[in-house]
């Protein structure tokens, strides 16, 4: 093993790197992968295993922590440290780990039920604290492991075993939710678009603070083709908006659509046909005010048209774990710990 290498990424400051060349194979385990054939999780696993070597982090300094659900089996297939924990609780467990171990790159793998239903509270508080965690939220808009009930991201009217007459409750938009919870980094990717997924993973890893990556992931058993129109070459360009920092938000076949600001409401909307370049919004992921990123997230209807894909927001804010450690360091710099003095306190007396 070579000496530790500085990786030069804020998100990995303090995490030892290696200059020994790694390959995707180094990140595979000997465990048989047990997702259903055709599941989108395979593509995400391959993308993550393919991407990890380019980070250059020592394998032993990477930890994958998951909750419960199909996606949460992920750590078993990554040859790093890992914990498959409790439904919804992975962000809390990861927070304790990240707070005490600045030398680790900690990743949370979760799903729409795990993160947004049973674990909603931990997710929002982790985002608000801005703990240095990378959260991969596999959104398949269905409950897979429990065999097909609707999820908090399912569209209204979803007919499932638990909702034979159609689901009644409106879904979360995970990106909107994360932005409302003060997230400093929010991005979206699609399982089948490896190149785009990898670029988002890289941006998330580089970010210092909580990075939430929503990954549209196909469950071919219980909710097949949920993202078909975002993937199909016939429709995808008209349905998705590629977010590139500094680029105007023009999209669609022949770039015939554009995102413009609605002068009446201040919100964003999509227009068809020609428009003045001056009116077209230029994507800025680094704007501090979350209003813009939120407006972007609201462009999607319940059928997911139009779905912005890429990094919505990436801003700097001190992380909870860094600040915690700074408080410890400051306390220690003022005086050395003195256990005898601590036990004695200020009011003692002596007998005999």
């Amino acid at each position, binding site marked *: 093993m070579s000496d530790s290498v500085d990786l030069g990424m804020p998100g990995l400051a303090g995490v030892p790197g290696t200059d020994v060349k790694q390959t995707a194979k180094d990140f595979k*385990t000997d465990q048989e992968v047990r997702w259903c054939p055709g599941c989108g999780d395979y593509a995400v696993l391959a993308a993550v295993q393919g991407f990890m070597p380019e980070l250059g982090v020592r394998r032993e300094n990477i930890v994958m922590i998951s909750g419960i659900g199909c996606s949460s089996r992920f750590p078993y297939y990554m040859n790093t440290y890992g*914990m498959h924990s409790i439904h919804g*609780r992975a962000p809390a467990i990861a927070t304790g780990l990240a707070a005490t171990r600045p030398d680790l790159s900690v990743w949370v793998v979760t799903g729409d039920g795990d993160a947004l239903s049973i674990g909603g509270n931990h997710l929002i508080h982790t985002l608000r604290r801005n703990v240095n965690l990378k959260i991969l939220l596999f959104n398949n808009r269905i409950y897979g492991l429990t065999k097909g009930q609707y999820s908090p991201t399912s569209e209204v009217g979803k007919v499932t075993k638990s909702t034979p007459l159609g689901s009644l409750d409106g879904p979360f938009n995970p990106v909107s939710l994360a932005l409302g919870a003060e997230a400093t980094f929010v991005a979206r990717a699609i399982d089948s678009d490896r190149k785009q997924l990898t670029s988002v993973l890289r941006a998330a890893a580089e970010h210092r603070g909580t990075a939430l990556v929503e990954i549209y992931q196909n469950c071919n058993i219980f909710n097949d083709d949920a993202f078909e129109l975002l993937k199909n070459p016939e429709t995808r360009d008209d349905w998705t908006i590629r977010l590139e920092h500094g680029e105007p938000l023009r999209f669609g076949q022949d770039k015939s659509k554009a995102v413009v600001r609605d002068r009446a409401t201040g919100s964003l909307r999509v227009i068809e046909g020609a428009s003045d370049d001056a009116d077209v919004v230029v994507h800025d992921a680094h704007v501090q005010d979350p209003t813009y990123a939120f407006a972007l997230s609201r462009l999607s209807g319940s059928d997911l048209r139009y779905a912005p894909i890429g990094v919505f927001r990436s801003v700097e804010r001190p992380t909870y774990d860094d600040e915690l450690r700074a408080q410890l360091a400051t306390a*220690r710099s003022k*005086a050395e710990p003195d256990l005898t003095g*601590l*036990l*004695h306190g200020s*009011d003692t007396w002596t007998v005999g």
Partner: protein
Amino acid sequence: MPKQVEQRDRVVIRFAGDSGDGMQLTGDRFTQESAAFGNDLSTFPNFPAEIRAPAGTLPGVSSFQLHFADHDIMTAGDAPDVLVAMNPAALKANAGDLPRGATIIVDNHDFTKRALTKVGYADSPLEDGSLADYNLHSVDLTGLTTTALESFGLGRKESARAKNMFALGLLSWMYNRPVEGTIRFLQTKFASKPEIAGANVAAFRAGWNYGETTEAFAVSYEVKPAPLPAGTYRNISGNMALSLGLIAAAQQAKLPLFLGAYPITPASDILHELAKHKRFGVTTFQAEDEIAGAGAALGASFGGALGVTTTAGPGVALKSETVSLAATLELPLVLIDVQRAGPSTGMPTKPEQADLLLAMGGRHGESPVPVIAPCSPADCFDIALEAVRIATTYRTPVYVLSDGYLANGSEPWLLPAVDELPDLQVEFTTEPNHADENGTPEFWPYLRDPETLARPWAVPGTPGLEHRIGGIEKADGSGDISYDADNHDFMVRTRQAKIDGITVPALTVDDPSGKAEVLVLGWGSTYGPIGAAARRVRRKGMAVAQAHLRHLNPLPANTGEVLRSYQRVVVPEMNLGQLAGMLRGKYLVDVIGYNRVRGLPFRAEELEGVLEHVIRGEVPANV
């Protein structure tokens, strides 16, 4: 002419007033004075859950009871010899606890028609003769305080606020307490507000001088120092002792301490205390909920820290799923339950022992977890070290069952020498511990130590030992996911065997006569009242043996033998018989339960009666 001084061997004083009257502070200061003087002592703060219940009402009464003596004592006392009541509500709420002849010092300032009606007095008890059997001192404490503070230029309301210090001064005179500590304390506490500091010190001195000069108080009392073992002491509450014990344990283990907690009465003071000691490498995380507090602590343990979570009953219920995960991950985790009266919110500031079965079995699946309980406020320090020893040696979650009585009550603590604290140092695994079929070294996370059955603790960042653990059943040794029937049966039994095999000191029995036929067995905070009751019974010439369990899971190996050595065993508990049921189930011994769930500690006199009944072979009338 100097006033008469009478000797007393012990005194119980209760300070009572509105929640906003500063009774806890007053009691605390009197305690410190008594400690500095060298008495043995024991305290019992009793306060409402509401922060400021409506002023002058019975639910708003807060009290602090202190027992101090010239000999070694075990409880905060059954009944006060002296009641200090700052208003009609405080008098009404506490008068019933006083034996005839007790002294009542009452602030008559607020005995207005309206205030009396509010608490249900038709006429003033100070004037209607209803307190004729008591030694009543009706004094305008508030008026005397405001008069004494006239020169300070404070508002009336502000000066009246110092009446608790006037009362403290008066009692300090009455019992010849040293005053320097309190004066120093007030000057430090109000250092940024010198006029408030001055006013409080002046009120305190005025109270002392009032006692010395007024004819109403003819006698003062002396309670000589107690012959305690030699050494340096401090007064300590259970929550403080637990906090210091956790820090000491982490230092002895050379591990960073991580506390994940959500505020809950009566456990929050542990969070507050630990938050002050960052220089000891203590991280405190106020989580979004109880579940996250436990989860974050477990995450920290996975990374090689000492993960601790603190709570009370309702929080234990929420953390239960995490404890089960910790039990199967086989990682250290210390869970401190400062028990309070339940179920549900119950009576949050009142003690109870009704979480024993929750700790023993309140988890899904076969999920054995060690359970230990401190027996006194100072013992909370030692129990914290013991919890950490068990958690790290056996890689297991551990429950510590304290309660509201231990948490807030206090007693003198003989300070341990730091270099005599147990060595708790932990070795992380850094090398492969197995070879695959080709002879290549690999790491098996569930390959156990044959002696302790503990699995290796290999923390992230250790090269070559990358592994995954999780809630799914693991194959013995390799730790790979396994749904194999025989493996599961084996793993369930092995996890149980590991907990059953924890080394625990033998149960010791105190029977000075050696002739006792009755054993009284307790656990947790009942140690003091049971011990005091046993002494009373023995003073009457009867024999009784006393034993107290600090380890409830596993129980000491000789427990069954001890139980069978006596004709009758009585088990007093502040629950409906949880330990009694465990003992009956495990040892088939027909123990006699004595159970009260009144949100109050047992009284020594009450247990004395119970023991006498059992010694005489009668079933106690009040079982």
